[in-house]
């Protein structure tokens, strides 16, 4: 990558509105948003606020009624989702919406194959992403023979394999157990450190606190807040509360570097040692 080139914003929305046919009110209203490389945005808001609509519009799965969407500098108005496949990855809220191959291996290889990657490269990338998500033992399994949470991880692997510069994730940790949620948080954090921009719809405050730091709040289709995540969590009923360990850190005035679990645990540990 040419480090001297000015960074192209992975995602840019300008004055975007979306009106569903027959709906009395717009699903998105005049949304303007700029997401920089490496940024981690939590898309928050009550059920039905327009979060998934925004994500779908960013991936050109929906066309804005007005306004402009650009992904890695490409104006998406005349593009289809597959025209963004080399730069953007989309994880659907329900993996049933995106899994259709007969084995996990084929499922993961589908995207890179469409992109024209060489077989060796596909094999290596598939092996790497399956290893990262602890899915290697499932490689020959039919995705629909896997338990639903693991199927979600397969869908995430399929989203990550082609090394997109923009990740659009709809509820990536839903129904995962604690270990798997922590794994997904680590994977997202690693991608961000490598410059990948992440926009995730989530109700999981724990995941958001670990892996993201900017909050974009939607209410009735409009941006109600765009602020640091830790300042936004818990501020209204439709927004997830601070994760319990973060509430405790605030209540006890623990001197923490961040509200991530590790930082709070370190501060609590010191407090307990000092207090006997």
């Amino acid at each position, binding site marked *: 990558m040419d480090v001297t080139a000015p960074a192209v914003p992975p995602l840019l929305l300008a004055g975007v509105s979306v009106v569903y046919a027959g709906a009395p009110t717009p699903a998105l209203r005049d949304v303007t948003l700029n997401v920089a490389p490496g940024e981690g945005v939590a898309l928050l808001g009550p059920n039905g606020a327009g*979060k998934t609509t925004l994500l779908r519009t960013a991936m050109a799965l929906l066309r804005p009624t007005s306004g402009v969407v650009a992904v890695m500098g490409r104006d998406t108005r005349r593009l289809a989702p597959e025209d963004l496949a080399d730069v953007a990855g989309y994880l659907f809220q329900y993996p049933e919406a995106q899994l259709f191959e007969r084995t996990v291996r084929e499922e993961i290889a589908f995207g890179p194959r469409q992109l024209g990657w060489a077989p060796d490269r596909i094999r290596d990338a598939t092996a790497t992403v399956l290893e990262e998500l602890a899915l290697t033992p499932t490689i020959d399994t039919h995705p629909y023979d896997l338990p639903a949470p693991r199927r979600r991880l397969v869908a995430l692997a399929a989203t990550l394999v082609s090394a997109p510069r923009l990740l659009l994730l709809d509820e990536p940790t839903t129904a995962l157990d604690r270990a798997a949620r922590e794994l997904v948080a680590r994977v997202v954090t690693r991608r961000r450190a490598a410059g990948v921009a992440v926009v995730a719809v989530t109700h999981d405050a724990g995941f958001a606190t670990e892996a993201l730091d900017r909050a974009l709040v939607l209410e009735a289709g409009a941006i109600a807040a765009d602020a640091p995540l830790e300042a936004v969590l818990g501020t209204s009923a439709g927004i997830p509360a601070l994760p319990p360990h973060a509430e405790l850190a605030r209540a006890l005035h623990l001197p923490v570097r961040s509200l991530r679990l590790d930082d709070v645990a370190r501060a609590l540990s010191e407090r307990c*040692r000092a207090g006997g």
Partner: protein
Amino acid sequence: MSALTLDHLTFRYAGAEVDALHDISLDIHAGAVTWLLGALGAGSSTLLLVSAGLAPQHTGGTRTGRVVALGTDLGSTPDRAPLAGRIACVTASPLLQLSGVAATVWEEVAFAPANLGWDIERIRRATDAALGRLGVSALAARAPATLSGGELQRVVLASMLVFEPELWLLDEPAAALDRPGRGMLADMLRGEARRGAAIVVASEDADGMARVAERLVVLEHGRIAIDGSPDTLLRGEATWTAGAGGTAFAALARRAATVAQPAPPLLLPPYPLDLSEAITRWT
């Protein structure tokens, strides 16, 4: 009387090398919320599918042992008519649960009562009430296919609540819900238990379920590892030993204990269950 009895139940998916459930014996009683917790793949979802009569009938695989739901032996009775309108099964994929024939949310929720042959006035009352209890009355005229994930989950719950089931089987029902939605779900589960329904919920949300469930069954590799009171179990180490995790404050204490060795006694069990207990403990 037991609403659901699993008697030496063993189940294995076709082609699998290990049992998904192994020698499970469990009695689920009416009027209470039983919570299933386990690591990914421990068997909670499979237990619900077998109890609903969906596995092996729709999934393939082999089952031994007995499953008796609401007095009907699911193994020996191919006739499910006696169970119609009595079991509510909410799977982890709400997208796959819509009837597919309803043009509106209202019709979706009215679908089961209509098929049960209720008279129109009763259908109307029950449908409006169920939509109200899940906070989705305003969506009544919407097409189900246009709903967001959280809205869809509420509608699926309403479409079961409407026929007053005797047995609820729910797999991660809070997954797509926002905070008000989670509150409504908790109220609904408690209300249904009071009404006398038997409720089995598989959930990874230990902090949410701690206040809702009377009984916690922890699964590990398809077997019952622990069966007891959530209030007692979540303060201890046993759920963690079984690979099932526990509450956020237990997770925090355990993480903090790894930073300071030897761990200060304040970071060891019994773990606090909620914020006020945690503040008292660690102030």
